[in-house]
């Protein structure tokens, strides 16, 4: 399955740390066989194992939903006691077809007649994953600095508004126009987010509430802008902006036939930059210090207020880039619309949580959710299974990953060494001990 393979990589970044921790337990001089068993258990109960098991569990639950809604299964259930095998085969039929379609839409379409057509699925996955990764990176920075920014949705909208306006209102030479539009997107998202940052820093306003309100305001703001004359597409009555100039659009990466655009490269670069920012720079160190313990950070001379504003600004800029990727890449031809952000901002929360707020994790979890999204569209078209199933699977994955003991209980696995159990839960997921 696509999901397992890609998340196998998700944890590559964290695996070494876990393996180091995992080394000592076999000190009781156990013979080789039980040692293997222990290593296997260690893998299954470690964070990588929990991730994989959580995905399996979520897909199983999704399978139950698929089967329950399938008419053939329902009719077979009616005469279950007469011919029980019918039910099982009907369930297998429904679930396997739906998930096969999901795979076809996400990785490689086995029904396609040519390779070029089959691989389109993978490029779709990468295209859909691009804004998820960018916005997820922004949210991840917030979570690691113990700022719960729910406002990626609004920041994505504002990013798209700024980038879109620059894209259709100005006439500039190609590389400059794109650069300006991307920058504009980052600034739009950054400004929107820093409203919450400044309010939090100056008045202590709860960032969860403020960002939620800003999301709603952004929805009406874009609706208002699109009702203005300057923003309206000539000859259209729909709230839709003019199409963007080609000079502002991301170049396509794999030719006209695929939607994959250079925004994906931007997402990769952003991952590296965020990694550097958080792990290697002074600012990132301050972010993490405030996230770990604001009181200690303050004592150490870090201005918690300043860091709060910076965190929101950087997070908003990344979410704004996600909006820019939407409008300058995926949706540019149809111009700016009210639905430009889709559900990117909400999905990005689950992406950041699944990626444990680390760049590499977010990259792969963004790919996974991008694959689910892209595959969900094909699944809906081919087997009639609504794409809403993807939301269920997505949220269940995050829930299960957030509670490793639950996953272990379901699979009857023992808890890893008690010392590790505390380390196991990622910092962003456990409730903070200290709250301002």
């Amino acid at each position, binding site marked *: 399955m696509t999901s397992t393979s890609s998340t196998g990589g998700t944890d590559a970044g964290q695996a070494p740390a876990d393996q180091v921790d995992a080394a000592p337990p076999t000190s009781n001089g156990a013979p080789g066989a039980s040692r293997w068993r222990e290593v296997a258990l260690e893998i299954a109960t470690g964070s990588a194992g929990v991730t994989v098991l959580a995905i399996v569990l979520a897909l199983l639950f999704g399978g139950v939903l698929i089967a329950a809604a399938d008419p053939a299964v329902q009719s077979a259930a009616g005469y279950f006691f007469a011919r029980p095998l019918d039910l099982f085969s009907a369930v297998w039929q429904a679930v396997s077809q739906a998930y096969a379609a999901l795979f076809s839409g996400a990785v490689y379409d086995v029904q396609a007649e040519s390779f070029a057509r089959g691989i389109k699925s993978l490029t779709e996955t990468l295209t859909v994953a691009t804004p998820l990764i960018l916005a997820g990176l922004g949210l991840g920075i917030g979570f690691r600095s113990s700022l719960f920014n729910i406002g990626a949705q609004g920041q994505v909208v504002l990013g798209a508004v700024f980038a879109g306006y620059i894209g259709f209102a100005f006439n500039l030479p190609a590389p400059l126009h794109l650069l300006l539009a991307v920058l504009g997107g980052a600034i739009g998202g950054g400004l929107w987010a820093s409203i919450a940052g400044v309010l939090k820093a100056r008045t202590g306003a*709860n960032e969860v*509430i403020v960002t*939620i*309100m800003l999301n709603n305001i952004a929805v*009406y703001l874009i609706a208002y802008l699109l*009702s203005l004359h300057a923003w309206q597409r000539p000859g259209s009555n729909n709230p839709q902006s003019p199409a963007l100039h080609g000079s502002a659009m991301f170049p396509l990466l794999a030719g006209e036939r695929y939607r994959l655009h250079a925004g994906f490269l931007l997402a990769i670069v952003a991952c590296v930059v965020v990694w550097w920012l958080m792990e290697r720079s002074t600012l990132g160190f301050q972010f993490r210090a405030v996230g770990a313990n604001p009181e200690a950070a303050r004592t150490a001379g870090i201005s918690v207020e300043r860091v709060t504003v910076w965190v929101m600004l950087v997070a908003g800029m990344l979410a704004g880039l996600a909006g820019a990727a939407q409008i300058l890449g995926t949706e540019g031809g149809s111009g700016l619309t009210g639905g430009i952000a889709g559900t990117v901002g909400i999905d990005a929360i*689950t992406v950041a949580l699944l990626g444990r707020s680390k760049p590499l994790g977010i990259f792969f979890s963004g790919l996974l959710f991008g694959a689910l999204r892209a595959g969900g569209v094909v699944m809906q078209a081919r087997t009639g299974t609504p794409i809403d199933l993807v939301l*269920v699977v997505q949220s269940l994955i995050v*829930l299960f990953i957030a509670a490793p003991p639950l996953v272990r209980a379901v699979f009857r696995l023992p808890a890893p060494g008690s010392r590790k159990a505390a380390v196991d839960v990622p910092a962003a997921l*456990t409730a903070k001990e200290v709250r301002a």
Partner: protein
Amino acid sequence: MSAVTAPAPAAAPTSAVLPPISLKASIAYGVGALAGLVLLGLVGPNGRTSGFAVSTRTDALQIPVFHVPSKISAALLCLVALALAYLHYRATVSRRRPSPWIAPGYGVSMVLAFLIWAVAGKDTVLPLTGLLAGSLFLALPLVFGALSGLLCERSGVINIAIEGQLLFGAFLAAVVATLTKNAYFGLVAAPVAGVLVASLLVLFAVKYHVDQIIVGVVLNVLVIGLTSYLFSTVLKLNASTWNSPPGLPVLPIPVLSEIPVIGPVLFRQTALVYLMYVVVAVLQVMVFRSRWGLRLRSVGEHPKAADTVGIKVNRTRVRAVLLGGAVAGLGGAFYTVGNSLAFGKEMTNGGGYIALAAMILGRWRPKGALAAALLFGFANSLQQQLNIIGTAVPSQIMLMTPYLVTIFAVAGIVGKVRAPASEGIPYVK
């Protein structure tokens, strides 16, 4: 709206250093009133009138439609607001607590001035009673949602999943009411749905100590996905058997419902509204005047101390969250059986988040939550009415206002709020 608190009055005259006087609130009031005076009262054409209707068609006692001269009345109301701002200023500089009537009085006069301006010179009249009844009606899910959040947060558990509880309540109410062909069974089923969502919240937040905000957000996504999935696969295909719920009938209370204005607004409503009166009153008393309420609040403020005196912290929290889920689920019934509407995808449309804001605006008190929810209801109702009449203000800007007000409120401009001390922190013995 609850009263605006000025900086704390001087504790004792003997203390040498007094806290600095903050004039922020007074200045904000004054600027608002002046801006209103200029924009609503002075600018604009002369000689217009604004019409208002008070009685509904079915009233026994009919009050005729009345017209007021627009510019003069709006200007007068803004002057009243300005005077109130001055009173607030006087109270603040002399370190007295401003009268609790200043804020609501200010709000009412400014809103009336705005209404007069908005309908000035129009042929249609503004139905005042309809506006108020609509406010109460639209506030319903927010009241229930805010009370749910209040119950949870008073016990120390943040409930972001109100949205999901409302949505699942709406869903189950619609399905059960359709299957039983009785709206009241839907009203019974809705709290069950809320409890189901709440039990997941309890499982992850209390048992597994997962961050409560995360659980809440993810549960919302889960419920949206689940209900949308079931809607697409079951409800939509066979709407007549699954998704055509009967609506709750309007039950006018005899005599009371015939009082002009108040009657149609308060006493010509459905059972859900009367239930809301009861729930608000009961919770207001129980949370602040009963042993149960004291324990609830102690667990949310200082769980260790509560545990020391023998209160079971996590058990109290679990019960409070489940009760909260039931209350929110009940509010969800508003969207389907309360409205005679079929269930639709994501039909709560962020109502749970607004309820959360209403709870904070209402300072974690049932009465306050009611007032804040009514404020949101009023803004929505006003927007609907003005949409019909048509005004100069774009509807998108009108729709934004409740959210802007919330941001101002949370940022402490309307007054400082303080959350229960231990909310969001799981209790581990």
